[in-house]
């Protein structure tokens, strides 16, 4: 092992042994869980969901949950050469000996890495090729709201938040194993647990044009699986004693989750729809947990996390409570996800108290018309006002995020992005407190990807060629040399769209792409568009069918058996409102009856 570790980059990510890792005596453990993140240690350890589930599972004395990450290519090669199977960090034991392998799936481009990890564990990637003696392989996470592309490989999906449902499934699995039941018999029982989707119990048929003609379920499986949520978020588990990596990771800090859900309803945003209802923690709870996590970890930075931090009602008391502790202890506080329309002097003073980092706003679109279409209710004067406050306060680094290819976008909308950036620049010239250093203004664009369970799930993605045309149009419209323009590659966004709206047949494409050398596709150095396109061709599927096609409204969607609690009618109504350019007020102004209140009657939305 030493020899292997000395031949790879950053070996500390493969050793475990970090402060606060959980090690248990196997004599007292009845079930072993391998919690897998299909990306590198640095990415996976930065994920709050992993840290929450690790803590929740390990609170149970009879369960030992260990972490597993994807090895970087150099390590994978060494492992394959030496016949070393994928192992868990805490014990170093091969995960194929565990009871359960559970994947956290946050983004589509990680799919090939899942296959890579199952294979590296020494297990067959396909559900049908695994025996009853092999571990149960399950998955949860945001992309599982459309689980279909991964159904060939995963026995069972958790839909929604995993804090409760995962343990119910693990307990049932243990009972069934003890009773000598087969995996198939267990899965049938598990399908009865709310929030569990067992793909083998569903059958999909297609019409001649390739669209889905019917989805049917076997006896005992629900026709529609509704996501599970944490009802009392204020009292939900928070990892105060969190693992502190001994090597640098991407987000190396305490992450405090203010609330789940979002009041805004931006029509492109999957998280904004699937994480409803809005459930917040009290500022007192967060202050207490934040300080305890800092004390327990020794981290020198804390960040507030949510879909829209400036919408948090208790933001000022929370910031003040944290700063009282942070300032004397040399700990800095950062606030991402600020909206451009409610950034204030008071807020700014709090953010800059310890260290002044860059500021990012995401207007998403250049014109008011298009911002109304996507329901990003940010007004130009609000944005410029926020910028003015920031510049007067001494900020001189600003990033602006936009999407290209949003539904109904015209060249006028694209050019308006440049105009907006120029206006921000002239605002800086008028009111910057420190002009000597100049302004670093960055404009970034990415290609819009239609996501399931959003009002834009039916929309087609523009082609890569069209995206690049709009990129050049924007580039030539940006005249000032003070503005830096970065655009995200179209190639990954195309495959992301295919996988996001994929049906069961796309599983074959994922397998082909993986067999052709895929894995770590979320890393540009390992992503290959050609590999994906050849895989699609090989399997007789057309990327345009999945990515660029506008799906007719009446058509059965691949993810029809899954609901996040927002009604299909509401999504459709929002889509129509988008095309009429009509905005929908945020949930605080008025309940827009999205269906969440009926789906989760026991939860008060945004209390």
């Amino acid at each position, binding site marked *: 092992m030493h020899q292997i570790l000395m031949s790879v980059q950053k*070996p500390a990510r493969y050793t475990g042994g970090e402060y606060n890792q959980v090690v248990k005596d196997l004599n007292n453990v009845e079930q072993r869980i391998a919690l897998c993140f299909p990306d590198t240690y640095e990415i996976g350890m930065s994920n709050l969901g992993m840290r929450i589930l690790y803590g929740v599972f390990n609170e149970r004395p009879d369960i030992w949950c260990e972490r597993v990450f994807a090895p970087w290519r150099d390590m994978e090669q060494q492992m394959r050469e030496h016949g070393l199977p994928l192992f868990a960090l805490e014990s170093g034991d091969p995960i194929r000996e565990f009871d359960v392998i559970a994947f956290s799936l946050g983004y589509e481009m990680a799919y090939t890495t899942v296959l890579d990890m199952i294979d590296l564990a020494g297990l067959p990637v396909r559900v049908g090729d695994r025996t009853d003696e092999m571990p149960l392989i399950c998955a949860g996470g945001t992309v599982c709201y459309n689980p279909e592309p991964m159904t060939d490989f995963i026995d069972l999906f958790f839909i929604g938040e995993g804090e409760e449902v995962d343990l119910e499934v693990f307990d049932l699995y243990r009972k069934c194993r003890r009773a000598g039941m087969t995996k198939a018999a267990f899965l049938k029982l598990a399908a009865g647990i709310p929030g569990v989707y067992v793909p083998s119990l569903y059958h999909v048929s297609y019409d001649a044009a390739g669209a889905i003609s019917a989805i049917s379920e076997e006896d005992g499986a629900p026709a529609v699986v509704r996501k599970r949520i944490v009802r009392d978020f204020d009292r939900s588990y928070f990892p105060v004693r969190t693992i502190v990596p001994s090597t640098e990771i991407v987000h190396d800090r305490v992450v405090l989750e203010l609330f789940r859900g979002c009041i805004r309803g931006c029509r492109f945003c999957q998280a904004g729809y699937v994480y409803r209802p809005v459930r917040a923690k009290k500022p007192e709870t967060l202050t207490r947990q934040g300080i305890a996590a800092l004390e327990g970890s020794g981290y020198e930075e804390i960040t507030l996390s949510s879909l829209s931090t400036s919408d948090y009602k208790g933001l000022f008391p929370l910031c003040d409570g944290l700063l009282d502790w942070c300032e004397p202890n040399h700990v800095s506080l950062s606030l991402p996800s600020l909206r451009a329309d409610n950034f204030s002097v008071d807020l700014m003073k709090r953010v800059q108290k310890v260290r002044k980092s860059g500021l990012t706003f995401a207007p998403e679109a250049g014109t008011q018309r298009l911002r109304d279409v996507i329901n990003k209710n940010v007004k130009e004067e609000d944005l410029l006002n926020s910028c003015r406050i920031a510049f007067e306060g001494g900020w001189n680094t600003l990033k602006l995020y936009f999407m290209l290819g949003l539904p109904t976008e015209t060249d006028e909308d694209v050019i308006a992005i440049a105009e907006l950036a120029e206006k921000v620049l002239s605002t800086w010239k008028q009111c910057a407190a420190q002009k000597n250093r100049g302004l670093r203004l960055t404009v970034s664009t990415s290609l819009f990807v239609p996501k399931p369970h959003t009002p834009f799930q039916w929309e087609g993605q523009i082609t890569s060629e069209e995206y690049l045309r709009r990129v050049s149009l924007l580039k030539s419209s940006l005249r000032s040399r003070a503005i830096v323009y970065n655009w995200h590659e179209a190639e990954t966004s195309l495959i992301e769209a295919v996988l996001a709206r994929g049906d069961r047949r796309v599983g074959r494409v994922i397998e082909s792409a993986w067999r052709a050398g895929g894995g770590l596709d979320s890393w540009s150095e390992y992503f290959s568009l050609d590999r994906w396109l050849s895989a699609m061709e090989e399997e007789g599927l057309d990327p345009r069918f999945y990515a660029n096609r506008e799906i007719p409204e009446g058509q059965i969607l691949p993810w029809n058996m899954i609901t996040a609690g927002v009604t299909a009618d509401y999504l459709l109504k929002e889509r129509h409102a988008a095309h009429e350019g009509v905005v929908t007020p945020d949930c605080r102004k008025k309940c827009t009856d999205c269906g969440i209140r009926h789906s989760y009657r026991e939860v008060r939305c945004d209390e």
Partner: protein
Amino acid sequence: MNEAVRVLFEKTGLSRYISHLDLQHTLQRAFSRAAISVRHSNGFNPHPLMTIALPLPLGYESVCEIMDFVPENGAVSDEFINVMNGALPAGIRFLEAYAPSRKVSEIRWIRTEGFWRYETEPCIEELEELFRRTAIPVDKKTKRGISQIDLAIDSQEVRFRKCEAGIRVTALLSAQSPTVNPDLILKAAERYVPDFPVPKSALYRRMELFDKDNRIFR
């Protein structure tokens, strides 16, 4: 660093794979967890006043690492070692804390042990022969290129012992100006002993620090 406290610590087991840079962060965070305030530098980007002497190469173990830091209130309590050991990751352990009386620049030699793993029984006579020579020049790669080191001058008491599955090496190696990495002994063997077999793996551990008069340094 007036008012500095010197810590003697070990870095063994899994922690050998923590790089020097990561070790600094790891120790800083351990100090915070133990609620021990380290004085920060003044300036635009304040950093904790903490220095680890003689960076340990990645993958090497040590039972004689030295770190100096300035506690915020000038001293540490009797409980310091215990408290810190409760806050450190696997493999890093504080052994002693004391007021330093000597400068780190006085460290001249490091006693190092090594283990070269072989699957066939190795021969050590030629190695012993080699280290009786009066000049053993080897190339050392540095950031500025390749420099020449004479192991006959910058190493002492180089001994080899056959053991199960390999060779044990012990040596006193120059700690600084120049820093002699124990791997250079292997390099010398490969260069001067005909058909010297490359070991399957090589493990090293720092055992003790000495000054120029071969007295233990603390």
